């Protein structure tokens, strides 16, 4: 498939490696005979929100699962903070994961624990914080950031879809990650809640100075949250640019995504 670049003037690759938190070159991943990622190239700068758009099954989630080491790539280079993920020991991978937050599509809250216990889990198990006052302060602060303080003692089963996403986001930001990976953060939500989550992603980027990769199908989320967008099709990126730049693209696949956008 031809690769098109509709927004070359905005695709300014930095001269130095400084400021690049994620660098992916020629990433490949297959499941059996199915080649999901064929040749993925991506750089994410510090403080940047990158949105990856693509149809279901094109390998978007697989790409971000490779970044946190949940899946092992078959080929190519994947560096986070300058270190090759594939060559990391278990201990190094654990240290890396502390710096990367991952928001799952479902929120992935631990359903036997209350929201408070969900947020305490990474603090006590990963950061090994013992001081209960410090734990309480951080839990309340994180929940306040996502506007969910009133649900602190509720179980995940008592929360709505949007509240679960917020609680999942609070659990992600509580360890102050430098990178946040969002896997379809607005899927299954009504338009108003989707917009709230998208605004929240932007406000978290500003407040915590995080870099993010956001996997989504939601054009409104992409418009609100993206500094830069990439469109994935059949295991490769076919276009890259700003939301407005891609909106003007003449590429047929890109146009499909923007056809309902005025």
């Amino acid at each position, binding site marked *: 498939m031809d690769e098109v670049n509709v927004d070359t003037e905005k695709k300014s690759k930095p001269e130095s490696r400084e400021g690049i938190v994620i660098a992916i070159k020629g990433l490949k991943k297959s499941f*059996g*005979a*199915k080649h999901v990622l064929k040749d993925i190239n991506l750089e994410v700068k510090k403080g940047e929100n990158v949105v990856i758009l693509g149809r279901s099954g094109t390998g978007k989630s697989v790409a971000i*699962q490779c970044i*946190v080491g*949940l899946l092992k790539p078959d080929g190519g280079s994947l560096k986070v903070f300058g270190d090759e993920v594939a060559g990391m020991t278990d201990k190094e991978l*654990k*240290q890396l*994961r*502390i710096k*990367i937050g*991952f928001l*799952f*599509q*479902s929120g*992935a*809250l*631990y*359903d036997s624990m209350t929201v408070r216990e969900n947020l305490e*889990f*990474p603090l006590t*198990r*990963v950061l090994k914080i013992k001081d209960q006052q410090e734990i309480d302060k951080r839990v309340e602060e994180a929940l306040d950031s996502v506007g969910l303080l009133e649900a602190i003692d509720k179980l995940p089963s008592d929360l709505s879809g949007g509240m679960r996403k917020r609680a*999942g986001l609070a*659990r992600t930001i509580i*360890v102050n990650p430098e990178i946040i990976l969002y896997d379809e953060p607005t899927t299954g939500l009504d338009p108003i809640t989707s917009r709230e989550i998208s605004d929240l992603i932007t406000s978290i980027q500003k407040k915590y100075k995080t870099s993010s990769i956001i996997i989504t199908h939601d054009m409104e989320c992409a418009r609100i949250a993206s500094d830069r967008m990439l469109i994935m099709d059949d295991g490769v990126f076919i276009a890259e640019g700003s939301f407005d730049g891609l909106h003007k693209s003449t590429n047929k696949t890109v146009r499909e995504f923007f056809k309902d956008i005025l």
Partner: protein
Amino acid sequence: MAEEIAIPSWKKWFEGIGDQVGFFIDFFRNIFTGGFEWSEFVRQCYEIGYRSIMLVGITSFIMGVVLILQLRPTLISFGAASMLPKTLAVSFIREIGPVIIGLICAGKVASSIGAELGSMKVTEQLDAMEVSGANPLQYLVVTRILATTIMVPILSIIGDVIGLFGGFLALNLRDNMSFSLYFTKVIASIDFSDFLPALVKTIFFGFAIGFVGCYKGFHSNKGTESVGIAANSAVVTASLWIFIIDAIAVQITSLLFYR
């Protein structure tokens, strides 16, 4: 798109064995590395042990009653009615109690662990735990396997006592035997070689139940139907292991104590 390459079933079988060996090694490695999750371990002991007492108690009681009612006519025909307490005690403590309670725990506990971890896998909770830098094996697997290893023998002892009490009540439906005489006969008829091998056997039953439940749940596929498959497969496999362990234990016990 290239065609999917079919993996031969024998290769899958060996891969499964390799996975289970790896899981077994990971379990032991995680017992001794990092912090032990005491609060989760105690919670699991409560869930697995305390919450199974009623089921184990009722089943054991009924088994005690049924065994006495079944044994009585046979022993009377041999003029050995006085042997009823001894026959019940030896058969219940050596074999029937541990196996029945093991199977009940396989049904209740292995399925519950398989379904719980399977559903955590489907809803990405296991992945979430892993990417947060926490260790799901330490938190979920080590605690559950150790809890079943400890609680199944305790449940077995409780079940034995309740079963023998059921036998006493059943005996008094037709005959008249005092509580003290019945239990004096029971205690006099069992010794170290009856009780200890049965207890050791239940430790292995408990380990198998916890291990199989955790393995099936942890390695379930990412689909809602796989939760049911994990639970079902955990019960079937754990039950099978109970019979295999029992057969091995009988051989070892016979060689050590009854030659």
